[in-house]
């Protein structure tokens, strides 16, 4: 199909699909390099409004376009109405910038941020007209590369992906582009890619692969020209990553292992990048992002300097520790914001010791008091249910804390005051490379009983409750720790119509159940299955840098209901993540 013919056919389709702006490109700060010799399609396997808000893809997009001669163009998973129309009309998956077919690119890079997007990965490959199985691809096909946090267990997608990038891609991506530029021969490209220590090529067998750590995060310049999405994006704001990694050690948290050690960006760089982004995007909000921004040692100075330059700016600090200091920081950063989020994760001290969330009841109450005292009228509190060793006391604790928060809110705003305590309880899903990787999920019927209890008990004025769909949580648990056979399940489910699994309106439970059954497995049994610490795990060949012994020690400590300190302040825990120059790097002592 000629290029102009493809463009006309795409335009024809856009007249009849929902939200055509998802497919048109042309946003501010997009990069178009029509004459580039090497083209890289960077894909997010979900809808435009989700994918455009992803910071990792924005970083890679800027990096390839700014620092290499290659062109990076963007791809998001077409919504089902568009995908169906594309198949009907024979229109292949295309990039947003130039509306060129993805299959004409040298590389299709897919970021794996969540397991529930895996069926969309297959959807993208198929829509592109690329053979679904890596083994069936030949000289004319792009190399399919997958990265992102969920690549840390590559096995469920191993047969569909040519190479997996393990870890942080800032440095490695330039090396990959250099290989693509050096030779057009697909087999030779794969041979050279296999030599990179952070790439896992399933066709080469389960050889050990090392997670890449971007040691220069703290000295590299922060991205300053993100693509500005159209109005429908889930996040429309500038954002500067102030810190990478977190050593708090929460035992359920994948990112807490996968991004160690902590590397902080200098305050001057944060301020400069933030102001530049505001100038070139037109956003009126700036977010200082990280896994726990209140832990960033330069946070107070950064807020002060940014507010000095832009006094009326909406400055947001997501992911704050539950304590009075972070609440005061949030209030200082954005005096107009009326909503604040705290994440105690568990409501009893026992459970917080089990999961290594080192906060106390007093700290939580003080934080709630500080939040309402600062004028916030919406308090969101995040919890998990179904955690290992959970008893009904822990669920009751969530109810008690919800009511306690309301009581504190009423003290500040009055019994009939206009404020809301919003309790959110998600379902614990064990993740690879965490101390809880050996634990199973709670059975679905148990989760439902607990959810029903929360619904009955947490009722009343000024209280709101939100719960996660048990079906999608179970699926996430069943495929997240999957193996190669999970790939069979995934393919069968996708062929039966599964896509956009995280979207309730598209979730196809029947397709997944049938697919598990056809593979001789049961969805719930996979999700709830405990792993024996002595048995090998499907992701054992992926070296995160954090040793398996450390994870096992942490698992044992969880059984002893003992928390572990943070190595930034409490001494080294010997997790294994620091090697040579790669170690915790704080900007202010």
């Amino acid at each position, binding site marked *: 199909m000629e290029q102009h013919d493809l463009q006309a056919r795409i335009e024809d389709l856009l007249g009849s699909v929902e939200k055509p*702006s998802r497919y*048109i490109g042309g946003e*501010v700060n997009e990069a178009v390099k029509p004459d580039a010799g090497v083209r890289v399609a960077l894909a997010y396997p979900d809808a435009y409004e989700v994918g455009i808000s992803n910071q990792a893809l924005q970083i890679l997009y800027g990096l390839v376009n700014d620092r290499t001669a290659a062109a990076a163009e963007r791809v998001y998973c077409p919504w089902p109405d568009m995908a169906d129309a594309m198949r009907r009309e024979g229109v292949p998956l295309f990039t947003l910038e130039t509306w060129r077919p993805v299959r004409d690119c040298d590389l299709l890079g897919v970021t794996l941020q969540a397991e529930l997007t895996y069926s969309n990965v297959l959807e993208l490959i198929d829509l592109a007209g690329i053979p679904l199985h890596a083994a069936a691809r030949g000289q004319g096909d792009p190399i399919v590369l997958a990265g992102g946090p969920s690549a840390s267990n590559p096995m469920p997608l191993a047969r569909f992906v040519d190479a997996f990038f393990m870890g942080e891609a800032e440095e490695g991506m330039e090396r990959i582009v250099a290989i693509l530029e050096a030779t057009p021969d697909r087999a030779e490209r794969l041979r050279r890619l296999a030599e990179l220590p952070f790439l896992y090529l399933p066709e080469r067998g389960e050889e050990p692969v090392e997670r890449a750590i971007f040691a220069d995060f703290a000295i590299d310049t922060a991205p300053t020209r993100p693509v*500005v999405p*159209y*109005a429908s994006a889930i996040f429309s704001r500038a954002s500067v990553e102030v810190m990478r990694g977190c050593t708090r050690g929460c035992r359920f948290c994948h990112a807490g292992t996968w991004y160690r050690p902590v590397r902080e960006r200098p305050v001057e760089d944060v301020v400069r990048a933030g102001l530049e982004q505001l100038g*070139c995007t*037109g956003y009126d909000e700036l977010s200082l992002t990280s896994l726990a921004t209140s832990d960033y040692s330069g946070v107070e100075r950064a807020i002060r300097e940014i507010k000095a330059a832009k006094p009326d700016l909406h400055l947001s600090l997501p992911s704050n520790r539950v304590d009075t200091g972070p609440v005061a920081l949030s209030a200082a950063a954005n005096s107009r914001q009326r909503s604040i989020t705290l994440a105690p994760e568990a409501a009893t001290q026992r459970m917080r010791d089990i999961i290594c969330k080192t906060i106390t009841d007093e700290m939580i109450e003080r934080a709630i008091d500080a939040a309402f005292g600062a004028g916030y009228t919406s308090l969101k509190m995040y919890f998990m249910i179904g955690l290992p060793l959970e008893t009904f006391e822990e669920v009751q604790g969530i109810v008690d804390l919800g009511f306690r928060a309301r009581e504190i809110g009423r003290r500040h705003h009055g019994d009939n005051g206009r404020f809301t305590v919003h309790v959110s309880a998600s379902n614990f899903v064990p993740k690879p490379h965490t101390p809880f990787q050996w634990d199973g999920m709670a059975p679905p019927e148990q989760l439902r009983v607990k959810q029903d209890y929360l619904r009955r008990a947490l009722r009343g004025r000024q209280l709101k409750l939100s719960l996660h769909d048990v079906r999608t949580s179970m699926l996430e648990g069943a495929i997240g720790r999957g193996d190669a056979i999970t790939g069979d399940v995934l393919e069968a489910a996708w062929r039966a119509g599964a896509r956009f699994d995280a979207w309730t309106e598209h979730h196809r439970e029947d397709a997944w159940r049938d697919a598990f059954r056809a593979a001789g497995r049961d969805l719930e049994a996979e999700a709830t299955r405990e792993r024996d610490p002595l048995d090998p795990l499907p992701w054992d060949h992926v070296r995160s840098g954090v040793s398996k012994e450390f994870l096992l020690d942490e698992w044992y400590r969880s059984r002893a209901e003992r928390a572990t300190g943070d190595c930034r302040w409490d001494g080294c825990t010997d997790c294994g993540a620091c090697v040579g120059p790669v170690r915790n790097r704080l900007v202010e002592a």
Partner: protein
Amino acid sequence: MRERARFLSHLEMVDVLLAALRRAGFEVALSQGMRPKPVISLALARGVGVASEDEHLSVELVGDDHDPADVLARLVATCPRGVVPLTCAPAGPKADVTGATYRLAFAAPAAAVEAACASYRGADELVVERSSPKGRRRIDVRRFAPDPVCEDGAVHVRIAILEDGSAKPDEVARALDQRADGGLGRAAITRLAVHTAPRGARVGAVETP
């Protein structure tokens, strides 16, 4: 609104323009009340997919020393691809939008388009169905767009906005399609002009030729 930018919705367009103004260094005034909103409006909502050579943006900027030429130049530099600011002037007295003129370009031969136009003009009533989340309605498009003419192989049609509503350009295109033997196919639609008149000038009916 040219090229792919025509697929932006009305609300997306407002958002795009607000961001462009901020990039250009302007502060948009906020409305009064509990939930202040930027004081900005586009005179006439445009259907998704409809290109336009005439959009009327009205915006209140903070400060009172704005040179229209400077505002235009800065906005030209900060608008995304396909969104092309053409002129800029201080706001005049408030006006009502009374209609808009559209160009409907069909792929069918010019003679067929000409014949469809003639047939359309000769009809007493041209009813098309409008579907929306609120349900289905039957619209007599001829009441609002009585006089389409052929120019350069395309149809130019003025669609009035009356006190009781209006027709959409794609509805006029469908009515034309229905009048053609064998149909005309889908039309590429471009808004050529937005027509305004002093407040209160909007009428209940247009004169039918």
